[in-house]
């Protein structure tokens, strides 16, 4: 069922003007991947500082709310660029990613990592005006470490798309 609709989606994309435009210039895919990796750099550095700050291991001179203010917006903007450059890579080569379980695992991990990172915002909202030391519960610290591990898992899953086997019956 799911595979069938993905095959229909692939057939619909293949031969379209954007598919042809991307596939007919050899520099487009590496250029998209370069922008994709640079956006990953923004996301990973941002979420590292956010989550290490909450765990109490980095940027300790800064209030948690200040670190969230500084990095949540660029992280979110970079995630949008990642979705766009990822989508364009799928349009250029529809069969490469979407017929592999690891791609859908990556999307699930991304959703969880993104939601968990944003969940810090309401959790620390009441501390916005507080000065000085901000007490962080052990649960919130554990969530911060989990969020960071999830982001790393997203990247590893992404790299594995190039090596994983496609589902049986998938177009090549």
């Amino acid at each position, binding site marked *: 069922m799911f595979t069938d609709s993905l095959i229909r989606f692939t057939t619909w994309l293949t031969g379209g003007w954007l598919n042809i435009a991307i596939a007919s210039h050899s520099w487009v*895919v590496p250029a998209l991947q370069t922008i994709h990796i640079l956006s990953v750099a923004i996301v990973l550095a941002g979420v590292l500082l956010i989550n290490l700050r909450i765990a109490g291991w980095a940027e300790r001179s800064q209030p948690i709310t200040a670190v969230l203010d500084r990095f949540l917006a660029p992280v979110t903007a970079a995630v949008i660029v990642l979705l766009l450059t990822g989508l364009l890579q799928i349009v250029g080569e529809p069969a490469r990613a979407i017929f592999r379980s690891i791609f859908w695992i990556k999307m699930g991990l991304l959703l969880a990592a993104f939601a968990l990172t944003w969940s810090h915002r309401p959790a620390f909202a009441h501390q916005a005006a507080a000065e000085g030391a901000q007490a962080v519960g052990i649960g919130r610290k554990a969530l911060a470490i989990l969020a960071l591990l999830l982001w790393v898992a997203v990247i590893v899953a992404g790299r*594995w798309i190039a090596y994983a086997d496609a589902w049986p019956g998938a177009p090549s």
Partner: protein
Amino acid sequence: MSLQDFAQWLSETKLSMALTDSVSAFPAIESVHVVAITLVVGSIAIVDFRLIGLASRTRDPRELIRSILPITWIAFATAAVTGALLFAANPLSYVANFFFLGKVSLLLLAGVNMLFFHLFTHRHLDREGALLPRVSGAASLALWVTIVAFGRWIGFTLSQ
């Protein structure tokens, strides 16, 4: 010993053969390399944007550098070790690849830029908006963007 000879010698070592024989070693090392290099570039970009004056402007640049640099160095060491292992898996192809040689040269340039900053440019940090730190940050950002691009292009131009 030329670069070619070194690559030839390396390709015949036990390490190189083990890396080539294993199905999962290359992607596993590559995954760690990607995590490390994105952390290098991302953490350096935070400092560069501060030096240029585009972000973190309320932060004292020296204090920001002290806070971020340990992350950069740990990530860089990891990227260098995993990068060397990836190189060892296929040395003859890499030394013949324009983008690989270009990437290594640009890495050296980025190192020179960083050295110049720590030796001279940092003295100009006290005056907000001074030209030298801004040039240093912009050069660093441009170099690292190009390094990432060259790195990605290696994957598309490597002859087996």
